[in-house]
């Protein structure tokens, strides 16, 4: 049965279960092409090494965003609706790396429209290095009858600020 997390199930300082992924050249190329990123540093190792000065091809940013989304919605289930994500890219992820996603709940609130929000600090780690961090604001149902996806117009306020 698919998880459908409710807003009331979540508290500040909760941690999400980690997700580990072994990165291969296929991971990088598949992600780049799926996100329509044709730049050679994401599929041509010679170009990446000689022109970018990196040790190999590396995960592109739009595909990293898709990994972060997958990680968060694995936790929320399909009723979780992303409102906002802020990325900071520190260093690159290469074939051969073992990337591990982890996250902590930093805030929960219900906005003036009645939408339940959870704020998360998510990190993509390779070893001890946070290669990318992402602040995520995701809406969760406030009850069994609520569905954030039904919110439109003034009922959907992804720009709202949390109280954390």
């Amino acid at each position, binding site marked *: 049965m698919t998880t459908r997390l409710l807003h009331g199930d979540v508290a500040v300082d909760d941690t999400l279960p980690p997700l580990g992924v072994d990165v291969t050249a296929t991971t990088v190329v598949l992600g780049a092409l799926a996100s329509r990123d044709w730049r050679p540093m994401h599929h041509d190792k010679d170009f990446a090494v000689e022109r970018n000065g990196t040790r190999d091809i590396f995960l592109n940013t739009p595909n990293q*965003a898709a990994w972060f989304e997958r990680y968060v*919605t694995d936790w929320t289930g399909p009723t979780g609706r992303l409102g906002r*994500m*802020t990325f900071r*890219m520190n260093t690159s992820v290469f074939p051969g790396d073992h990337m591990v996603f982890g996250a902590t709940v930093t805030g929960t609130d219900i906005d003036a429209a009645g939408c339940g929000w959870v704020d998360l600090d998510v990190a993509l780690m390779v070893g001890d290095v946070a290669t990318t961090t992402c602040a995520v604001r995701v809406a969760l149902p406030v009850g069994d009858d609520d569905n954030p996806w039904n919110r*439109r117009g003034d009922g959907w306020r*992804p720009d709202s600020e949390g109280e954390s």
Partner: protein
Amino acid sequence: MSDVPTTDLAAIPDGVLARIGQVQYEKEGGFPVEHGYIWSTCAATENGNPLFWDDAVAAELTDGPIAPPTMLSVWFRPHHWSPGRTEPAVPLQAHFDLKDDLDLPEAIISSNTITFHDPVRIGDRVRSRQVLKSISEPKTTKLGRGRFWVIDVEYLNQDDALLGVESYTAFGYRRDEGGSS
């Protein structure tokens, strides 16, 4: 970061200042939103969210199939080639314009915020437009001397509904030829 100059930067040209707040490069994506790319993205990230695989779940929760929100920028990325074009198209042209106009040959994207509004649906024709929001005073970082700028890319569908906004903060710079960090 400091404001101590190590390399002189030219003043921002009036033509560049006039672009702040103006809509630029409004264009429609090269094809309607389609399921193939959605499944490719989910496969690339091993994303089993039933919203994107199970029509019954999509019908129940989102009134039909939608795209993963983080695919927002996918729908405006140009084809690698199209008839009559001799140079690859650049997705974030306003950014590359600033590099040229401010004579700052290097640039990095230091942060990126995506705000998601209405869901993107199969068959949508996604239109994007770029808005230069701000340009900073000269700054010196460990990369060199340059300026920060913020560019928003707004995405709308064929009904003019706002789908999302990507806000890029970039630092355009000249390498510090003096070697200091």
